[in-house]
């Protein structure tokens, strides 16, 4: 069975500092990987996704993620965060790309300190 682990429930970081949000998954088959962001009092929004090809994926708002098959990881990074990045970030995996078969991590709250 597939599973997703987001290793940090909260990540505090100073404004303009770099950040990495960690995501590890387990699966016996090839996977599609996603990062979603949930701003306060809003629904989830797709940040980026890996389906195939280049392992470095660029998304919206300056975020990027790297798929590492050997380490079964899909960590999310941003070189310089802004106060507006304060949100909860969710990693998800699917072996088919179907929305209903997405397996979700528990989320990481990114807390930006001024």
């Amino acid at each position, binding site marked *: 069975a597939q599973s997703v682990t987001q290793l940090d429930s909260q990540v505090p970081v100073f404004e303009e500092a770099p950040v990495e949000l960690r995501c590890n998954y387990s699966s016996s088959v090839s996977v599609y990987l996603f990062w979603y962001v949930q701003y306060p009092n809003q*629904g*989830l*929004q797709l940040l980026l996704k890996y389906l195939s090809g280049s392992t470095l994926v660029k998304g919206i708002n300056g975020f990027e993620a790297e798929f590492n098959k050997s380490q079964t990881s899909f960590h999310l990074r941003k070189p310089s965060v802004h106060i507006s990045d304060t949100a909860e970030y*969710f990693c*998800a995996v699917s072996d088919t790309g179907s*929305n*209903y078969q997405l*397996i*979700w991590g528990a989320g990481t709250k990114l807390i930006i300190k001024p």
Partner: protein
Amino acid sequence: EAGVTQSPTHLIKTRGQQATLRCSPISGHTSVYWYQQALGLGLQFLLWYDEGEERNRGNFPPRFSGRQFPNYSSELNVNALELEDSALYLCASSLQENTEAFFGQGTRLTVV
């Protein structure tokens, strides 16, 4: 263009009652998904509707049910509410099952 809209935003019910949550998808989207987001947990897939039919359901008891109307809007019904049903219920819609899903703001259900 309007996004996915859910109503109500908050709902308080007592144990044993029924709750009805509503979702209007983005215009043109035929697939609607329901998820439960309990505190501290990731999203758990509840139900998927497409073209008016229930296509798949997650590992939830039968007291969680729903339907999709001809205009593709959907409602989620939770019968015999239990305290542990308290959660944020998110609805999402997409053009097809494997295209990007767009989420609503959710309905916060509190069972007391």
